[in-house]
């Protein structure tokens, strides 16, 4: 379970005047639904089984993050980066993913992604 509470996270993000620094933080299993985490630095963060439904993650940095079993349903991911992120069982259903680049392996292991017309 996460190393901070949702209340602590919400208050800290609220006080943030720039991109929230959440790299390497354990947020596993947390309910992060509909939070505004645009441009957040989530590199290497532990987001296993986190609920990020409807969350604003535009331009967020999710490189090397662990997203196993996370829900990104209906999330806003335009221009977010996922280099090296682990997406096994991560649900991207109805997410907005303009400008998002996922590797073949990431796509294969994720759920709910539209079929890539190029493949």
């Amino acid at each position, binding site marked *: 379970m996460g*190393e*901070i509470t949702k209340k*602590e*996270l919400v208050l*800290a*993000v609220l*006080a*943030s*005047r*720039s991109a*929230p*620094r*959440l*790299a*390497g*933080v354990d947020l596993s299993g947390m309910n992060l639904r509909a939070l505004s985490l645009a441009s957040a*630095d989530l*590199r*290497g*963060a532990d987001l296993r089984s986190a609920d990020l439904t409807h969350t604003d993650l535009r331009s967020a940095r999710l490189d090397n993050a662990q997203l196993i079993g996370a829900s990104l349903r209906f999330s806003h991911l335009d221009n977010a980066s996922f280099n090296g992120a682990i997406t096994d069982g991560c649900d991207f259903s109805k997410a907005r993913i303009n400008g998002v680049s996922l590797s073949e392996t990431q796509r294969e292991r994720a759920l709910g992604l539209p079929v890539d017309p190029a493949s």
Partner: protein
Amino acid sequence: MAELTRKDLVLALISAGEHPRLRRVDLSGLDMRGLSLDGADLTGANLQGSNLTNAHLSGAILQSADLRGCILEAADLTGANLEGAQLNGAVLVQTICRNADFSESDVSDANWKDADLEGAHLEKAIGFKG
């Protein structure tokens, strides 16, 4: 012993802005794995024995910081300023040190295995065995 816990630091960093101010803070022995400290001012900070594995420290100011025995494995120190820092016995295995400045720093017995030292300024470092 560190004056902050990891949780204190995590919460402070979330809203810290572009240059977290951590000058002379005692962070010794602290678990700081993976944290985002890019651009942080850690001048004179005590990081002795801390664990900064996979931490992001690009552009950080670590002048005169105490990093003795610190674990910096696979950390990113790109462009960091470590002038006069103490790095005796530090672990810099697979650490990215591109364009980092180690002038006048003491790097005796540091482990640089597979570190990326491209453009790093080590010519004036003390005890460097390249």
